[in-house]
């Protein structure tokens, strides 16, 4: 087990290192010279350029620059945004909570609804309802999340006017306390529903196929031969074995949840990381963009390792291998 943990941690460290390296290389290779931009586009002064290069260490050997970059990152310094000239970290910090709010709610709802539907379909394998649910799951799997979000706005916000079209709360409302919470929940409804609908097919398919697989195993046959009732076999033996893959998928989804939610945030103008990402793309704000990417890579690596370790702890077969 110890060896397994060390191995996973090693891979995780490599992932982070690779991400940092990619980031450094991409930004260094980016077209356009930042010092030239800062020195003035039309009539750049060579001396000014030299001073700027000296200031930002751009005249040093590439390896030294990479070392400087890593040192900066280790101090939690992601640099300054090109656009707002505030610290990148300050921009990101305030966006984390709103993103996690939607992402978590959506992931948990999808986990429950998808798993329950999957188990339901597996127990009615081959019936009309099973075929119908499978078909729907294919359909939602093929749907781009941003398009589904737009359709949600069209139907439920624009035509039916049940929910607000965008944002996190009513800016003109000035609500306080419970009313504010209610207002935010109202604004959350459509983005969370979109995310849930997009994620349900994963859990549905995993739950369905793992239940079916467990039911076809020999020990279930043996249990049947002992005369145990079908529902007892199912609740006591099938469920326990079938739920493990679902846990893994949930962990992986959590790792990638910020990626998944970004597009939906953009559609609903939700003030989270996805929105920040879009702004930095349109304004070509590379430091912010690369900081978001780095944070994401690190959080994905950490989550994946946690999932692996939990999985190895739950299922001894993994760690032996």
């Amino acid at each position, binding site marked *: 087990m110890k060896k397994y943990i060390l191995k996973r941690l090693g*891979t*995780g460290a*490599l*992932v982070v290192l*690779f*991400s940092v390296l*990619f*980031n450094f290389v*991409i*930004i260094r*290779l*980016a*077209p356009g010279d930042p010092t030239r931009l800062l020195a003035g586009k039309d009539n750049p002064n060579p001396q000014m350029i030299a001073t700027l290069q000296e200031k930002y260490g751009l005249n040093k050997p590439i390896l030294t620059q990479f070392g400087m970059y890593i040192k900066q990152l280790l101090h939690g310094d992601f640099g300054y945004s090109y656009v707002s000239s505030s610290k990148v970290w300050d921009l990101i910090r305030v966006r984390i909570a709103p993103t996690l709010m939607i992402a978590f709610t959506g992931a948990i709802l999808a986990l429950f609804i998808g798993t329950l539907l999957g188990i339901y379909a597996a127990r009615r*394998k*081959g019936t009309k309802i099973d075929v119908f649910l499978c078909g729907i799951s*294919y*359909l939602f*799997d*093929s*749907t*781009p999340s*941003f*398009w589904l979000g*737009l*359709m949600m*706005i*069209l139907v439920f916000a*624009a*035509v039916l006017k049940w929910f607000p079209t965008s944002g996190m709360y009513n800016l003109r409302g000035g609500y306080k306390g419970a009313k504010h919470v209610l207002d935010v929940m109202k604004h959350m409804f459509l983005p969370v529903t979109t995310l849930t609908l997009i994620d349900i097919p994963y859990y549905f398919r995993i739950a369905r*196929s793992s239940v*079916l*697989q467990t039911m*076809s195993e020999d020990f279930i046959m043996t249990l049947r031969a002992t005369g145990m009732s079908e529902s007892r076999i199912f609740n006591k033996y099938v469920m326990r074995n079938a739920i493990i893959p679902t846990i893994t998928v949930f962990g992986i989804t959590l790792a*990638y949840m910020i*990626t998944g939610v970004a*597009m939906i945030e*953009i*559609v609903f103008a939700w003030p989270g990381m996805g929105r920040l*990402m*879009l702004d930095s*793309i*349109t304004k*070509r704000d*590379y430091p912010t*963009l*690369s900081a*978001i*990417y780095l944070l*994401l*890579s690190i959080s*994905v*690596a950490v989550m*994946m390792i946690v999932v692996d370790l939990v999985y190895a702890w739950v299922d001894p077969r993994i760690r032996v291998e």
Partner: protein
Amino acid sequence: MPKDVSKKKNSKLKKTFATVRGNTQLMLGLIFLLVLLAIAFFGPMVAPFNPKVLNDDLLAPPGDLYRLGTDNLGRDVFSQVLYGAKTSLEIGFTAAMISAVIGVIFGGIAGFYGGIADRILNEIMNIFLMLPTFFLILLIIATFGSSMFNVMVVIGLTSWVGNARLMRAQAKAIRERTFIKSSIAMGESRFSILIRHVLPNGIFPIIANTTMNISGAILTEAGLSFLGLGDPNVVSWGQVISNGKGYLPKAWWITTFPGIMTIFTVLTFFLIGEGLNRVLSPKMDANK
């Protein structure tokens, strides 16, 4: 003698047909694919307008002249939808092919040679598996420009891990088979065995997975275009959806129709991939 051969071929063909017929996903997928290919090939010929021409009617609702309406600049949405099919298919196919080639080479070498090559390649695969791919693609495209070439290559270069893992497992299993061992005993070079026996015998799961990758690449491209990172010189569904976003309640047709086409296309390759997987592992069929 020739008669015999043709008969044999015929029965093989019949068998293939029977497999396809018995496999709902595969059959539906192939029918959809035919429709898609027809749209991509004949679409530009039957399109009533040039998709880039700015007509005088802005935001015209669907009607006799503009079958699916026009967008904010007066471009005909029906023509845009028809032209977009080619873009989507091109990006999907090319990106998936790049990822298949890289995956087969890396996976084949890792699984067949084993040892230190396997350990290094496997670690690289583990690392790539953990990278948030969509954001990496986004960062690269945002930095280096969003030509169609860049989009295809970057998607291909970041999505090969699944193929490599499949190929590695296949090569590992095939390596132990008798006909490989006898080839080695007969003095055939390792590399030639890898190319002539291992790859052709292990390729089938890669084909199924590559079909799924086409779906993934099309979705990724749609996402990039929606974020404004598509190639501005081609007509793509993601871009049309993105254009229509700002005119949503009123001019619903701009976003709705290209979205439906995207779903249809992604679903097509998804169904074919699932169908092929089912042909591949009859055990799954029993589970179905």
